[in-house]
């Protein structure tokens, strides 16, 4: 009993001293509670399906940010990892009868291989050249998919894959939990020493090399990590939709990921995740006005890019929080002195 009391008190202290002090942390907690309690408030299969897909695409968008936002290796063919993950999970499930808990990580690992395969030739390229080269890879793979229809299902894709779980609610909880876990891992990576090198490579690769760091290795690592997480998202998608088709490799899929990340704010991880949670349900909501849907979607994007060039979430964060000029700790915008070092914030 004492132990429970201890942990409750500890939780309360953390909430009071670490969470409530910053609006962004409160938003994360509220978001977590929203995801946790959503099935309690709605039993609507359609809503749950939309949010499950949103969670899958959130992993995909965050994985793009890890590679392109942090390391600056602009990848316009991120659908490759997603598609490879989806096909690998689908094939291993259908042909080798691997259960989803094994086929989804396998999809991630095969996507790591794909990351290595495209990473090695792309290492010498930079900027626009890299972006255009990466754009070609999913198109090439789609050619392979159509060329071997017996293995890949051709245009129809591979169907009849096992579900992640039997009920929609369990499916939702597994995917949402994985989304939270994987995004936390990605955020932790970017916050680590490796993350510092990723940031530095984006800023000036030559200077990183002159600091004694093998940038090739780190760029490959970024490709592999990003591929792994995107591959997991692909595997989840295949098992959730019960089909892995050429649509997972489409150019539009690659560009959607870029749009999500730019909308939410690159090099943040939380930005692309938040953007998917706004844009994906919004696009579904707008389907009632089918003919205006794309137009309205484009308008929202243009407004965001015009007025918030760093993305929606960094802009919002700067509005509600200020950085202490002395200790660089973030404070709620209404404070006049820093909560840590008591420096004036005005």
């Amino acid at each position, binding site marked *: 009993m004492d132990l429970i009391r201890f942990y409750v008190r500890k939780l309360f202290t953390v909430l009071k001293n670490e969470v409530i002090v910053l609006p962004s942390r409160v938003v994360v907690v509220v978001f977590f509670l929203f995801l946790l309690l959503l099935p309690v408030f709605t039993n609507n299969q359609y809503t749950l399906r939309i949010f499950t897909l949103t969670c899958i695409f959130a992993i995909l968008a965050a994985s793009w940010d890890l590679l392109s936002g942090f390391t600056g290796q602009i990848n316009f063919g991120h659908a490759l990892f997603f598609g490879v993950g989806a096909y690998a999970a689908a094939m291993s499930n259908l042909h080798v009868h691997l259960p989803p808990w094994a086929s989804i990580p396998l999809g991630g690992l095969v996507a790591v291989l794909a990351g290595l395969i495209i990473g090695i030739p792309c290492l010498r390229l930079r900027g626009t050249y890299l972006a255009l080269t990466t754009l070609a890879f999913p198109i090439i793979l789609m050619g392979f998919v159509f060329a071997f229809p017996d293995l890949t299902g051709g245009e129809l894709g591979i169907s009849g894959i096992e579900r992640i779980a039997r009920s929609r609610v369990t499916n939702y909880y597994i995917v949402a939990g994985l989304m939270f876990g994987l995004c936390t891992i990605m955020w932790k990576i970017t916050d680590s020493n490796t993350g510092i090198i990723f940031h530095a490579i984006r800023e000036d690769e030559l200077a990183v090399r002159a600091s*004694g760091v093998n940038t090739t290795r780190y760029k490959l690592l970024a490709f592999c990590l990003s591929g792994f997480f995107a591959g997991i998202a692909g595997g989840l998608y295949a098992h959730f939709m019960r089909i892995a088709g050429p649509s997972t490799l489409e150019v539009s899929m690659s560009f959607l990921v870029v749009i999500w990340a730019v909308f939410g704010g690159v090099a943040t991880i939380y930005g692309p995740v938040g953007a998917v949670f706004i844009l994906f349900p919004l696009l579904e909501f707008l389907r009632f006005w089918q003919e205006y849907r794309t137009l309205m979607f484009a308008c929202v994007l243009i407004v965001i890019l015009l007025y918030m060039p760093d993305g929606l979430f960094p802009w919002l964060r700067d509005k509600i929080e200020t950085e202490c000029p002395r200790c660089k700790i973030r404070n709620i915008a209404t404070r006049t002195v820093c909560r840590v070092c008591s420096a004036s914030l005005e």
Partner: protein
Amino acid sequence: MGEAFLEVMGLNKQFGGLKAVNDVNFSVAREEILGLIGPNGAGKTTLVRLITGILKADSGSILFKKREITGKKTWDIVNRGIACTFQNMRPFRRLPIIANVMVSCLSPRAMKRGEWVKRIEAKAMDALEFAGISDMALEDASTLSQGDLKRLEVARAIATEPELLILDEPFGGLSPAETELMAKSIHRLHKGGRFGRLHSEGPAMIIIVHKLQQLMKIADRIIVLNFGTIIADGTPVEIVNNSKVIEAYLGEGEI
């Protein structure tokens, strides 16, 4: 002069029709501070870029501690003990100053040499302390002045604990007072010793400047480069009185 620590032999580099480095031969001893001077476009920076592997030489060879480093990758050369600073400073502008130095501290060489340091932040902080900009450690590098950027370059280079330090225009853009301070720091570093958790090997140095005056006090030996060729090699006093050097800087004829 002691045994050769760095040996450059018959080094050549051509950009199209321009011979930037033309059959350059020289060596640096372990305990030496070598000045490298020359007018604009003499090939000083190209020579440094060849030594550090940023550019590939057309021919010739470079030996460091008797081992061939010609054609090796820049990061590999840095990990063998050669560090350099850039003439046009290349900070990671959107990263805090301490993170700029932490990148160097994360190189295999620095990690191996500082195994006993639990947090690399501490080592990075000591490098900044040595360079005199530790009070700004948390600011973004984009907020630094020209002089402080030079210091940051030095901090980044010494964080790998090099045995040969190449400073490209360390006094460029600095005020006379700042130049004086930088020269003192260079001397202190060359003497070697421990600066907090950072250890200075007392590195041999190659200092590139284009004003001879700045080198007179600190350099043991000076090499003068003009049109990619070495035109003089000697002590500062010898160099000042060398007719070829005077001609390269002031031109021919009566003054």
